């Protein structure tokens, strides 16, 4: 970026705008991709992709994980170069060599994982990499003014002096959007933007996107959530196995059609399950208190029971103690008080190998964050297929690990769970999100545990795999096992759970029947408004007070 003294436009904006207006007549499309091809060794990630993105529209790109969406966008953003094909920006062909080049052409990207410096202020993050002066002062002043203008123009209010780690995930995402706008982006690519957002934060985001579109920006939205496509996009393109299978006007299509295009077969978007037949209590949590790493009490005296043959869902906005609850019940985190009983026997989960003892007692755990917790992504697939069970007699005698047996078992499960690619020697990092989740699920279900604890089972997982994962969970329930499900996706909880507990501020504030509770009622409880539900919540509150 060259230095400039003007304060209105950002450095990148001025020259490019001129180019845009002269070429605007030539094309109604902001972005045109023609016959894009990209191979990674034997994998044909993008084949003959054509894509036209109309200026001033929100254009959704859907497809299962591994369909080639991210590769395509990485080509557009300059992370990869296409093997063949043409990219036209505002009608002018360009060979985009890196992300700086893409930015100069007015293409900005908001990544799924934010690229922010946690202990910098919002303002500092915005100018990071485009400080145009050796002294920060002038850059910060200019950026502050520009940020105010952008905030005003696009309804993107933020406190420029707030520190990133202190603000919510939704705000962090706004900062990412502001970063792109500050760098002069006219075309914004958002990669799975709602994966980390609460429903209300997602609604906020959509409001912002609409404003941006109405102000003339072009937005490309990569997602696999069909509800979002229907809610926000004007056009939608569907990718499958590296090819572009359709581009439709959103108002002329429906989720069923999109799902079928994505997967290539009919998909059931609703979970089909019969009535639950709850038996005896398998998991009993009594007055559980859990503190986080900083010593803050996050779970404040929670009691509940899960019976064999039922799925109990815990709903709530992320950060209300669900994570600590899961980690504690599964033995990863010490309890500060209370008991966890499995089929009547108290579990001793203290110490840093508590999870080992929990597993031995028949409690399996599919963690919220598979990449950070449930898998060692640097390991080969078969190594992850035994994580937590590496001392199982099936995998060797004494101290020695029977690698052959472990690989054979991994191969069996790859076939059983249709994990792709079907190669147990492949590094786990190279599997897609859905397949990684299948690896975890297969491992945790393998030993037929009495209790299965599942956190965010379908976060970042594609439609085809979601159906499979939900069916597996229901199959376990029908086999008489107890399942504790935690998810921030209310839809998932409502369709999967037989009973819903709502968690707010470390406590269970209410119980609801998924068949009768409305989204509004649940939403109120999730927000901590419990007056109306006081009678339902009182038994829990009473046990909590007794401590």
């Amino acid at each position, binding site marked *: 970026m060259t230095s400039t003294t003007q304060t209105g436009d950002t450095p990148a904006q001025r020259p490019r705008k001129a180019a845009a207006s002269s070429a605007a007549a030539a094309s109604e499309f902001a972005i045109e991709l023609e016959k894009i091809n990209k*191979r990674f060794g*034997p994998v044909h990630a993008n084949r003959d992709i054509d894509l036209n993105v109309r200026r001033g529209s929100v254009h959704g790109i859907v497809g299962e994980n591994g369909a080639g969406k991210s590769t395509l966008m990485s080509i557009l953003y300059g992370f990869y170069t296409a093997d063949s094909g043409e990219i036209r920006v505002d009608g002018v062909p360009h060979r985009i060599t890196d992300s700086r080049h893409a930015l100069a052409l007015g293409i900005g990207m908001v990544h799924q994982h934010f690229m922010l410096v946690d202990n910098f202020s919002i303002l500092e993050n915005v100018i990071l990499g485009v400080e145009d002066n050796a002294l920060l002062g002038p850059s910060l002043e200019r950026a502050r003014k520009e940020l105010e203008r952008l905030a005003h123009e696009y309804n993107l209010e933020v406190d420029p002096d707030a520190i990133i780690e202190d603000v919510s995930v939704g705000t962090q995402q706004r900062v990412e959007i502001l970063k792109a706008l500050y760098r002069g982006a006219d075309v914004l690519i958002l990669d799975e933007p709602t994966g980390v957002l609460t429903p209300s934060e997602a609604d906020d985001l959509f409001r912002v996107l609409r404003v941006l579109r109405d102000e003339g920006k072009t937005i490309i939205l990569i997602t696999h959530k069909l509800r979002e496509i229907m809610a926000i996009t004007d056009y939608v393109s569907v990718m499958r196995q590296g090819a572009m299978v359709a581009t439709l006007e959103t108002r002329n299509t429906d989720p069923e059609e999109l799902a079928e295009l994505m997967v290539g077969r009919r998909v059931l978007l609703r979970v089909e399950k019969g009535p639950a037949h709850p038996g005896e209590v398998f998991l009993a949590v009594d007055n559980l208190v859990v503190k986080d790493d900083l010593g803050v009490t996050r779970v404040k005296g929670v009691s509940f029971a899960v019976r064999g043959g039922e799925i109990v869902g815990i709903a709530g906005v992320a950060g209300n103690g669900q994570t600590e609850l899961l980690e504690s019940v599964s033995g990863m985190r010490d309890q500060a008080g209370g008991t966890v009983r499995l089929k009547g026997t108290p579990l001793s989960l203290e110490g*840093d190998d508590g999870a*080992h003892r929990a597993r031995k007692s028949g409690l399996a755990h599919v963690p919220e964050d598979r990449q*950070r917790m449930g898998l060692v992504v640097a390991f080969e697939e078969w190594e992850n297929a035994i994580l937590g069970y590496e*001392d199982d007699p099936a995998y060797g005698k004494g101290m020695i690990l029977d690698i052959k047996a472990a690989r054979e078992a991994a191969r069996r499960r790859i076939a059983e769970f249709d994990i792709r690619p079907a190669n147990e020697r492949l590094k786990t990092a190279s599997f897609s999100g859905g397949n990684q989740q299948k690896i975890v699920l297969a491992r945790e279900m393998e030993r037929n545990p009495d209790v299965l604890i599942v956190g965010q089972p379908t976060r970042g997982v594609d439609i085809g795999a979601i159906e499979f994962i939900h069916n597996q969970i229901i199959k376990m329930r029908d086999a008489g096992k107890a399942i504790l499900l935690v998810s921030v996706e209310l839809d998932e909880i409502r369709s999967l759970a037989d009973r819903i507990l709502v968690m707010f501020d470390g406590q269970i504030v209410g119980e609801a029947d998924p068949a009768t509770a409305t989204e509004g009622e649940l939403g109120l409880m999730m927000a901590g408004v419990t007056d109306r539900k006081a009678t339902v919540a009182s038994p829990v509150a009473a046990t909590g007070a007794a401590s």
Partner: protein
Amino acid sequence: MSALRPLPRWADILLLPLINLVLAFVVSGLVVLAIGQNPLAALEAIVGGAFGNGYNIGYTLYYSTNFIFTGLAVAVAAHAGLFNIGGNGQAYIAGLGVILVVLPLQFLPWWVTFPIAVVAGAAVGGLWAFIPGWLQAKRGSHVVITTIMFNFIAAAIMVYMVVNVLKPAGVLAPESAMIAAEGRMPKFGTFIPWFKNTDVNFTLLLALACLVGAYVLIWHTRFGYQMRALGHNPTASTYAGISNSRTIMIVMTLSGALAGMVAVNQIVGVQYRLVLDYVADAGFVGIAVALMGRNHPVGILFAALLFGALYQGGNELQYVIPGLSKEMVVVIQALVILFTGAMEGMFRPGLQRAFMLFGGSAARREA
């Protein structure tokens, strides 16, 4: 950038270190040239000094023995995500254990005292690494800080012990009493005259056994699996129910025990007594050896041989070319450590690009 793909295994393990090594030699050559000497003659002197005859090879292998131990010590810890830079102190203080069991048993045959010395060296070296391991596991003190501080503590203790406790009355040099001839392990030269009276001894076989043992431990045992899980992702290992604190303490103890084997080589195999500073920084060379050997026993074997050759060849260099002082040798060794150790990843992106160009066209041909 994210587009770069990892190198094929052989390129990672062989080609990259080779490029680094060649570059280190080229820069060393320029330094030699700058002080008015012939670089090719110097290279010839180093290679000849390291591998010229049985005598040279014997000493090269002797140095390599130490570097295998210290390299393995660093590598084993590295697989669990621990950076043990206290190999020097662990190797040093292990000598205390070795000399304290060997001196009382010095009239027994060497093949009786040798295993006892191994156990004693491993125990004391292991203990010296266990303490930092315990501090990290239980108190959160980082091993990088504690192990390097323990190097200084070890040095101070050893000076005190040698000067005030172990030094026999009437001896001026700061060293312990000599082991009786019966307790001394014969050097290879005793059986294979070709090696002459060089310092290479049976401890080399122990080092080779440790290489095999480390390979089995890391990749073929349940514990090795657990420590690698910890090394790659401590959250996942907690999730798996692996006790991270226990694993850290065991791995550090193993690491220190391996470093402690240097004491066995030096005291039972070479010096027959405890002298000051016998480790001669082998612990630090071990870091470079492990880095260059990519923490793999096979890589460590080759890297240890290389550094052994450099030490021995470098020692010879000053006799062959009088213009190159001992300090010059240190400069060359430092350059090799710099290029193969500290900057070992410098050429990786370039090499990856080269491979992608080549690999890409190969993939197109297949299609």
